[in-house]
């Protein structure tokens, strides 16, 4: 299902076309699946448009007016160290790198994953063999051409335990390792078939390979790379780093010639901005920097600042995401080792109030399982009802007839709203005879204990597919399993869902996955939060991304 030359199509694509024709799936599900199976997004939008009789244009190609060349886009964001892109721990770091070093794929604001350095991909029917065809003529800043060997070097590097790249935890990478510690790469798990073809031979079916390859530490680097990236900023992107001071500024300039002085032509066509200037402002101060006219856009503003933002001259951009705080209980630590206690806590909390009270109704209500309505395979379970009497009964059965006192660790790792949500829970739990103490600690301290604390609130970022975070966080023994959860029935159900391409069938399979998580009551997941930014009217072509990734190769300035 290569897109440019359309050599062959995945056998499932005609079925998807039929399902869309019969309106059995919606446009979004269709687009997601055909692009996942390798059809180009432009072709997918065109095909969906023809079937539905609408004029659909791929947002990635849609243009706002006639772009003007030139100008400097100024952005307020935390400027962080750029050591090694494969070990980045913050989205901001990746944004500083994103226009210099590129990815094999790109997930857009519409949550669809498209080819980037890869031109197309093919998945085998069992989803264990994935073949990526690389775009030809992609140049590194030193004038060399990007090859499959370069890509293989990167992937092998991510799997080196000594590097400590969080990419190793991706479903794709975890299907490439073996051994007792699951850290030894399976020989031939990734191979360069020819100069422009990379093949993944996975030990189990993985649905999310294209999405995984846009994980923020998955930027493709040149094999000559030596950290820090800020000293060796070589990539295939249209910009290079010309000045970088942590906590101050990060200046990107368009590449016009290679490091050996020859003309550099970016493979992706015209790029409009001459320069992108990131200036250091922490989250609390970014909006006021925008208000002063110091910057054209910002990384984000918080819900508390919404009113101020609404009064400014600029376009507020807002998007629903799968970003959340998981108020999770550790199933091996008392009193949460008792299922009835966990269920009592879940029963005593009314999830419907959080979105209004904490996010002014701008987010989406959670359902105590880690799949969001924005995920394609989200299955809407019946709404959870608060039942204080049932909670009390469960507590009595658990041997806490006289009430229960518990403590939650709050690190506010995604802002003070974690604490606000915990305070709402405290008030609600009180009515069921549960006294909740809130232990507020610094964010850095929370990250020291996040997998160990009996009860804590952990921020989880947006991922394009619902199955991705479930594999990362709720399978037995995985590094990020912060709940100590281990349920073979759940894993079997998740395996079944992850092996299905048909979104409707996968949705049906997710019903059981979500239900098991809900019944086991390992978390309170009160809401899915939106993200906000603001953009000056002179900036055109800017779209907010649910993971706050900056994708600005087609952004331009009206007053360039």
């Amino acid at each position, binding site marked *: 299902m290569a897109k440019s030359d359309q050599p062959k199509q995945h056998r499932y694509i005609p079925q998807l076309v039929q399902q869309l024709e019969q309106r059995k799936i919606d446009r979004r599900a269709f687009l997601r699946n055909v692009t996942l199976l390798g059809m180009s997004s432009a072709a997918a939008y065109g095909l969906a448009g023809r079937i539905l009789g609408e004029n659909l244009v791929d947002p990635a190609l849609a243009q706002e007016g006639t772009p003007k060349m030139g100008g400097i886009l*100024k952005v307020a964001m935390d400027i962080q*160290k750029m*050591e090694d892109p494969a*070990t*980045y*721990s*913050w989205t901001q770091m990746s944004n500083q790198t994103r226009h210099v070093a590129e990815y094999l794929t790109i997930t857009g604001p519409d949550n669809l994953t498209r080819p980037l350095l890869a031109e197309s991909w093919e998945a085998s029917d069992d989803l264990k063999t994935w073949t990526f065809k690389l775009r030809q003529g992609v140049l590194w800043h030193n004038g060399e051409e990007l090859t499959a060997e370069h890509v293989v070097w990167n992937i092998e590097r991510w799997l080196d*335990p*000594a590097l*400590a*790249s*969080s990419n*190793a*935890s991706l479903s794709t990478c975890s299907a490439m390792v073996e051994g007792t*510690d699951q*850290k030894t790469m399976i020989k031939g798990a990734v191979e360069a078939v020819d100069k422009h073809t990379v093949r993944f031979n996975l030990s189990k079916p993985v649905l999310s390979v294209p999405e995984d390859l846009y994980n923020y530490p998955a930027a493709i680097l040149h094999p000559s790379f030596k950290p*820090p990236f*800020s000293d060796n900023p070589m990539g295939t992107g249209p910009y290079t780093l010309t000045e970088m*001071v*942590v*906590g*101050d*500024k990060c200046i990107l300039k368009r590449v016009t010639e290679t490091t050996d002085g020859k003309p550099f032509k970016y493979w992706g066509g015209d790029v409009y901005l001459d320069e992108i*200037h990131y*200036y*250091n*402002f*922490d989250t609390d*101060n970014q909006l*006021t*920097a925008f*208000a*002063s*006219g*110091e*910057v054209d856009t910002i990384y984000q503003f918080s819900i508390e600042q919404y009113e101020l933002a609404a009064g400014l001259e600029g376009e507020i951009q807002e998007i629903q995401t799968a970003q959340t705080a998981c108020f999770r209980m550790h199933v091996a630590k008392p009193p949460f080792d008792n299922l009835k206690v966990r269920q009592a806590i879940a029963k005593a909390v009314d999830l419907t109030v959080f979105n209004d009270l904490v996010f002014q109704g701008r987010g989406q209500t959670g359902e105590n399982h880690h799949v969001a309505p924005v995920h394609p395979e989200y299955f809407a379970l019946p709404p959870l009802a608060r039942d204080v009497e049932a909670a009390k009964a469960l507590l009595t059965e658990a041997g806490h007839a006289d009430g229960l006192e518990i403590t939650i660790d709050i690190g506010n*790792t995604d802002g003070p709203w974690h604490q606000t949500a915990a305070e709402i829970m405290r008030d609600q739990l009180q009515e069921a005879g549960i006294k909740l103490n809130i232990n507020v600690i*610094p964010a*850095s*301290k*929370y*990250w*020291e204990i*996040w*997998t160990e604390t009996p009860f804590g609130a952990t921020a989880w970022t947006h991922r394009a597919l619902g199955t991705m975070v479930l594999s990362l966080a709720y399978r037995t023994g995985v*590094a*990020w399993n912060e709940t100590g959860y281990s349920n073979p029935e759940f894993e079997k159900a998740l395996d079944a869902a992850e092996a299905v391409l048909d979104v409707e069938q996968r949705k049906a399979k997710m019903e059981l996955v979500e239900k098991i998580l809900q019944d086991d009551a390992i978390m309170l997941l009160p809401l899915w939060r939106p993200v906000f930014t603001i953009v000056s009217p002179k900036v055109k072509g800017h779209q907010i991304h649910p993971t706050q990734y900056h994708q600005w190769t087609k952004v331009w300035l009206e007053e360039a």
Partner: protein
Amino acid sequence: MLGLILRRLVQMALIMVVASFILFVIFDTPAFKKKIAIAELGGFAVSALSEEDYQNWLEQKGLNVPFFQRYANWIGNITTGDFGKSFEKNTAVGPLLLDRLKNTGILAFWVFALMIPISLVLGVLAGMKEGSAQDRTISFISVFTTSIPEIATAIILTVIFALGLGWLPAKSAMTQGFDWRQLVLPVLTLVTYDFGYVARMTRASMAEVMTSQYIRTAVLKGIPYRQVIMKHALRNALIAPFTVIVLQLNWLLSGVVVVEVFFQYDGFGKLLLEAALFGDVYVVQAATLVAVIVAVLSQIISDIGYTLLNPRIRFS
């Protein structure tokens, strides 16, 4: 006097050794090393590391060197002007610190340039006629402005002059190089907070001097009032405020974190806060040494100034 200065300098060296040693002990604990790892790699990545991988990471960063050796190396390097490398900012600590000190120096200069004349004039005017309407008005304003925390003053000034009237920039990050307009709000905030304190001290000192016998005698002798104030009262009345003003140097160096962070002004206080939150041990160490030097030097200046203003005072 020379003996006094020498004694103070020896004290300073001792304080620096003790302070740096204590900080090194604190930052050498496994908890702090973990904190640096989390700050660098992120909580998610660190929890995926095996013990062996973690030890390798410590070795890469030079954090698994035994404590005394690391401390000795650090002291040795300082004597050659090398303050180490910042973990967070990936740059040499010496130049980083110098740059931030320069910025705080610019801020402090303008705060002093405005605050000293305003507070002394107001303090003297209030103290000259204790209990008068003039005194009460000045005292009220002084107490009022000083009792508002800097963060509140900063917000009020920003809302009025930056967001409301649009006369001044709301932030002082100097993204396009030095811009005096961006310095106005932080300077105003600090002056507003601080002048009242010094003015109150000056007023109290002035009021006390004005009730002394020699001033009364001078007035009764018929010396013009202006001359009594300028020639006889002022010099004695300035001794106490002088000490207070010199001690404001310490406050301006590390006590203005709130203002620097609020306005995103890249000064010494902001650097210290960022380093402390990150666990950036070499930056915290170097900043502490500078803070000690400034504290002791300001004390020496204050002592010397004391003896010059009042020859009766002798330190032995």
